[in-house]
């Protein structure tokens, strides 16, 4: 048993680090997961990675993947987290991409995979509905066959960044008489410019525009946009969700977040002493670091399993639960650390004159509350943490 990286892995880390140092767009700076990014901001790094051939590292080599081992992919994500890089969004890369190359036909692969790799085509996910969130199978959006088209009607919600999307992948009910709600669902690709598709913003707690309602009214989609078999969409949906969950632990990013938290707490003062010297606060930071260390080893153990040929299994639900709990506690502690400057509403105090100085409070305080509010989503999305517990209940405990 040995946690050290091999010399080859170390060399890989050096190569990756040098590449990021040279090529990561300087103007993006340390923006990380901030919500006020433009489409161009989101895609800048993705485009560069696409040219390098590193935008879809986990894909099979024949579809443009890197052939990296799980450990190399872990190193890759760690190195990106070091600079808080804006990573390629998951909707194309980790969600619909794997579904297309696994279940799609040759035309679909040829048509869609290159745009996902390059970042030129922006994807969004049409899973959730107002009445069907974690109980995904109860979705009501219908797709009715009409000649060589499907006619789609319904309403989707939480469609992340759909305001920029070129294409969407939607779960639609194609058989309303199926015996079980999981049956009779199909996985359909929709060009977002098709008449009848309407995207309406949902403003979130943090003031940002990250998610949308997507209305589909008599949207006519050619049947060749059906992925796999009709009525078998649930299988592909579950496959996609398992992929989404691996990597959801966010260990590397949380490690970077703890460093940042320590910097903030070293700067903030309490009774004339740095906050990080305050035992009660330091204790909370230590507890967070300990839980994060445990999560990191658990993820490495899962990776080692993957390296030995086990796909992402129900263990990824543990990573999701623990990872998101830690992300939430981290943003909560950061909010605490910032103190009263957590209160100013960023959008009302931000400079529009292009200067880097925030006019109110230290620069690290500007997004603390916003990020805290935003991160409440993590235990809800991707199958809520309660649903993850249901998955472990069934798949691991056998209850």
């Amino acid at each position: 048993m040995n946690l050290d990286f091999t010399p080859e892995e170390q060399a890989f880390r050096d190569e990756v680090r040098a590449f990021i140092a040279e090529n990561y767009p300087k103007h993006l700076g340390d923006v990380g997961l901030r919500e006020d990014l433009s489409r161009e901001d989101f895609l800048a790094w993705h485009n560069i990675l696409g040219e390098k051939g590193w935008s879809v590292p986990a894909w099979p080599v024949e579809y443009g993947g890197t052939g990296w081992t799980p450990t190399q992919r872990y190193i890759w994500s760690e190195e990106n987290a070091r600079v808080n890089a804006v990573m390629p969004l998951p909707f194309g890369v980790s969600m619909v991409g794997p579904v297309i190359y696994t279940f799609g036909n040759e035309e679909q692969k040829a048509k869609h995979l290159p745009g996902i790799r390059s970042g030129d085509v922006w994807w969004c996910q049409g899973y959730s509905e107002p009445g069907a969130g974690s109980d995904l199978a109860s979705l009501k959006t219908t797709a009715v066959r009409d000649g060589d088209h499907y006619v789609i009607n319904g309403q989707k919600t939480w469609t992340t960044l759909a305001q920029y999307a070129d294409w969407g992948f939607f779960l639609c009910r194609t058989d309303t008489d199926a015996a079980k709600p999981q049956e009779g669902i199909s996985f359909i690709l929709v060009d977002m410019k098709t008449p009848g598709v309407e995207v309406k913003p949902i403003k979130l707690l943090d003031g940002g525009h990250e998610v949308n309602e997507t209305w589909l009214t008599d949207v006519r989609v050619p049947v060749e946009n059906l992925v796999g078999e009709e009525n078998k969409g649930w299988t592909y949906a579950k496959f996609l969700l398992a992929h989404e969950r691996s990597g959801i632990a966010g260990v590397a990013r949380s490690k970077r977040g703890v460093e940042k938290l320590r910097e903030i707490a070293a700067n903030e003062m309490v009774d004339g002493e740095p906050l990080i010297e305050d035992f009660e606060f330091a204790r909370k930071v230590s507890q967070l670091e300990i839980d994060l260390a445990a999560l990191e080893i658990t993820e490495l153990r899962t990776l080692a399993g993957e390296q030995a040929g086990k796909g992402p299994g129900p263990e990824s639900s543990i990573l999701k639960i623990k990872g998101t709990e830690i992300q939430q506690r981290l943003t909560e502690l950061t909010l605490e650390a910032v103190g009263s400057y957590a209160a100013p509403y960023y959008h009302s105090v931000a400079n529009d004159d292009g200067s880097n100085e925030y006019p109110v409070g230290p620069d690290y305080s500007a997004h603390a509350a916003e990020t805290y509010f935003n991160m409440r989503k993590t235990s809800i999305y991707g199958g809520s943490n309660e649903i993850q517990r249901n998955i472990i209940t069934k798949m691991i405990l056998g209850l």
Partner: protein
Amino acid sequence: MDFNFTEEQDMVRDGLSRLVREQYDWETRRKAIESEAGWRPEIWAQLAELGILGMPFSEEVGGFGGGAVDAMIVMEEFGKGLVVEPFVPTVVCAGGFLKHAGSEAQREEHLSAIIDGSRVFAFAYAEPRGRYNYADLETTAKKDGDSYVLNGHKAVVIGAPWASHLVVTARTGGGRRDAEGVSVFIVDKSTNGITTRDYETVDGRRASEVYFENVSVPADALIGEEGAALPLIEQVTDEAIAAHCAEACGAMKVANAMTLEYSKQRKQFGVPIGKFQVLQHRMVDMYTAYETAVSLTYLATIKLDAGEKERKRAASAAKVGVGQSARFVGQEAVQIHGGNGVTDEYAIGHYFKRLTIFESEFGSVDHHLKRHVSLG
């Protein structure tokens, strides 16, 4: 990066697992801990024969050239069966002191006797008023010509009733709680002036209060350098922490399995209680707590040979995380077992008790959280 075990390690695990399953079943254990001896010397002899007691020692001294990972494997299996035999005090602690700082003569005298099972040790480090600070010592050792004279009172010395020898910490200089002036001695328990008050512990082991009254030991009873033993004690106790964490993982694994099994059998309102979502989610959290504990135990074990700060941080992280998991799993297991969980007859309560006492050995959750904080 590699989480695999060697073929030898897998063999040891299989062998031990069989031994615990076949010879350390619940009834046999109960009889043993209630017997006058309170443990099973014949099992100890068997462990010696299998080479288990020699595993973490180098081949030159008659060991098997293993290390911390081997101790982890052993203790995890012991944890599954709530084995009471004193592997940690004898092999990990006394063996650890000898391995790291013992003189040629000390190793020759003691190590082979540990490996062949003929000599059993207890580690007398705690004191009634010292809590978990190894330097907070009222026990003194005064140099007197070619001897040291020990005076003091050591608290809750686990396994002392079974031990032929003690490893004792005492102050040879400096003020109370000073880092300097702490020394370690190996003492024959039958030396004049040593008295003990033996008792059972709530988790089925035996321990003693050990009193030293003008106990004269030869100068060569000192291990390592006089007055400079604190870093050595910390190294050895971090090794003991890693081993005990592995034991707690083993115990948690079984406690979880028992609880899961019980929830499938026990019916209420016409259905097995395992069908209730509120209990399902609690058992998921117990499972997650166990996996967390395993990860931190791996971390602590792997980092035992790292730099001092890294080692201490990992050991403290493990003691905190495994301690929290142990408490959580123990309490939840009892709760889900309902009334049966609080009876002496059901095994689950005994796992709960061991998982409870785990926290107070070599530092509580709060103590190690403080240490983690102090390491920055």
